[in-house]
């Protein structure tokens, strides 16, 4: 039976224009999505490059000024900005902490356009006020732009629904079911074969289109890296084909099948993620950022009032910076940096509360992601693309860590009252982003396939039950 189904299903689909329509549709969607994804990644890279260029330019100015100062020449610049002052280097010539896009960043750009991919931490700046967009809820990040992940997660299931909702009902409605059922075959096996054949065509088309689009967008070098994405795509398609198979056997008429499948699409793709998002925010609400900013201001105001006392305490804690030469005074920056240290320590519980709630939300979503294959796939694609919440959190932590490294590098110059020289330039720390290790996608692929097979099993049992009752045709 399979040989005949395979041959004639293709002929039939080709002659009624389905294969052509499917090819054009998938090609157009993926081409647009890939182009869009590449454009976003290119913009991100250009932004990062611009930041580096700016630093390069600023460094050239710094080195010229240092050269003039070291040669005893007068410079026409505000004394606060002359780079022989370590705090001038730390504040006016910061390094770039950039989150370089991964090889597959174009697959799932997520809300990358809303997040900062490069920051310039300064010595006197607040870590909490670094220009990171607020990461509130991981599910919010799931709703992204028109990139390949959007096509895979949102549109591919709709295409599969349109392609399969009436596999059995169309036979009933056109009347061919009676002739089919008069053959020595079981109808549910026949439907399953039809679904398998359609899944085969979708898989084949997806593979060809992905390869073609990769060549057209000059990313063919990533062919092997795309293998896990291809695997997820096929496993996710299998799940939707399985749902359609079960609905074909459980429901009945084409219109009811279509409504049921669209309902399931809404449930898995929109409703469950939205409910999880809402529940995550309700169960683990993020502390108010306004309150945090207010607290930051209060602590700063208090610290400003007690700067001398704070500096004394700071120097008691850091005897290496204490100097016994009464001729060497303490400037504004000595007091400010000491008070900043205190501000950071006092703010730590508030910041930790943010991080703690964020982690709880992420853990909650991770526990319940199995409720929706769409969430599973989106999380997996984001992780593969390096645009997941964890990736941004990883970058935020690394950048905050670098801010500390930057500060700690320049503080000894300040407290030891040593000038910064051009010889010290080479030793300035640089940021190197360390992306998260990929955990592999095989677990998600296997779970999606198991889910699909379970749904097929449920559909098959229904078909078997109807056959036992001899009412699969009359149903």
């Amino acid at each position, binding site marked *: 039976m399979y040989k005949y189904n395979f041959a004639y299903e293709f002929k039939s689909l080709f002659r009624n224009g389905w294969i052509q329509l499917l090819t054009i549709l998938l090609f157009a969607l993926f081409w647009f999505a890939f182009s869009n994804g590449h454009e976003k990644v290119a913009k991100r890279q250009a932004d990062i490059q611009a930041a580096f260029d700016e630093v390069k330019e600023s460094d050239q100015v710094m080195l010229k000024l240092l050269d003039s100062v070291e040669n005893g020449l007068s410079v026409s610049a505000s004394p606060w900005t002359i780079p022989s002052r370590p705090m001038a280097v730390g504040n006016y010539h910061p390094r770039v902490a950039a989150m370089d896009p991964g090889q597959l960043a174009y697959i799932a750009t997520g809300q990358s356009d809303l997040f900062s991919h490069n920051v310039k931490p300064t010595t006197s700046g607040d870590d909490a006020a670094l220009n990171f967009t607020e990461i509130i809820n991981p599910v919010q990040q799931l709703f992204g732009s028109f990139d390949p992940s959007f096509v895979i997660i949102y549109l591919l299931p709709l295409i599969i629904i349109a392609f399969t909702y009436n596999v059995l009902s169309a036979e009933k409605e056109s009347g*061919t079911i009676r002739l089919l059922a008069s*053959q020595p075959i079981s109808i549910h096996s026949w439907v399953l074969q039809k679904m398998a054949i359609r899944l085969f065509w979708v898989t084949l088309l997806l593979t060809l289109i992905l390869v073609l689009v990769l060549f057209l967008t000059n990313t063919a070098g990533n062919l092997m890296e795309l293998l896990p994405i291809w695997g997820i795509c096929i496993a996710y398609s299998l799940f939707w084909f399985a749902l359609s198979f079960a609905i074909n056997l459980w429901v009945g008429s084409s219109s009811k099948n279509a409504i049921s499948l669209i309902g399931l699409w809404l449930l898995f793709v929109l409703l469950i993620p939205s409910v999880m998002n809402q529940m995550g925010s309700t169960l683990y609400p993020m502390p108010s950022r306004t309150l945090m900013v207010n607290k930051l201001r209060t602590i700063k105001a208090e610290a400003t009032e007690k700067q001398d006392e704070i500096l004394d305490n700071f120097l008691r804690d850091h005897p290496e910076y204490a100097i016994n030469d009464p001729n060497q005074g303490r400037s504004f920056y000595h007091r400010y940096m000491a008070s900043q240290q205190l501000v950071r320590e006092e703010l730590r519980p508030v910041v930790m509360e943010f991080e703690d709630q964020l982690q709880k939300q992420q853990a909650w979503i991770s526990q319940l992601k199995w409720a929706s294959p769409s969430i599973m796939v989106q999380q997996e694609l984001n992780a593969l693309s390096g645009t997941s919440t964890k990736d941004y959190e990883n970058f935020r932590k690394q950048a905050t860590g670098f801010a500390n490294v930057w500060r700690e590098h320049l503080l000894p110059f300040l407290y030891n009252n040593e000038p910064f020289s051009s010889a010290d330039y080479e030793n300035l720390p640089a940021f190197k982003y360390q992306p998260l290790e990929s955990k592999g996608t095989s677990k998600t692929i296997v779970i999606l396939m198991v889910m699909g097979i379970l749904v097929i099993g449920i559909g098959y049992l229904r078909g078997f039950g109807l056959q036992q009752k001899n009412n699969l045709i009359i149903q």
Partner: protein
Amino acid sequence: MISTDNLTMKYGETTVLDKLNLTIKPGELYCLLGANGAGKTTTINLLLGFIKPSSGSAIINGLVVAENVHKSKKNLAYIPENLMLYPNLTAVENLDYFSGIGGKSFKRQELEAFLEEAGLQADAFHNRISTFSKGMRQKVGIALALAKNASVLLLDEPTSGLDPKASNEFGILLQKLRSNGVAILMATHDLFRAKEIATHIGIMKNGQLKQEFVASEITLSDLENAYLSTMGFKEMAV
């Protein structure tokens, strides 16, 4: 061979087929006459295993259909009132597909020979079914019976809606199959065609087989009278 043994079908309290006993031997063509709702299509659905009887059994070639749903269809062909085939496939392709999924594989020339034997014109063999008339589709159904080498043929009002010429051609084809030893059960409203081609005729009413005749032993006029009186139209009987 087709037989039914006290075949009964009930939907809730309503009995749509009541203890039907029929035997159709190879080479016999049995026409079931009756008004709409008499139980003709239900009988065919039960013989095809589309529904399960409430009691009694439908038997095809010695196999109880309800217990051997697939096996009983191996040598069975069925032509419904409106034989629907795949409109985007040609006659040859439809024949190849339906005989293929039924487990019979043929070369193209053999498929064409079946269609020719079923009376389809050669220039239509490779046309899509969407261009076919009902009569032409019924011929593809006969070709399928030939391809399956069916020993049992079930027909549910196959000539309704056919023009007289097509209906006559269809009758000739059935005669040919019957003479080849096929046991044929045909549900129909067409008394004239039934008298012309059947070996046996039964009249059903309210799920019961009210009268049976050997076709050669009754005239068309007597058959018409028997039918009308069975249906309760005695004043119309001549």
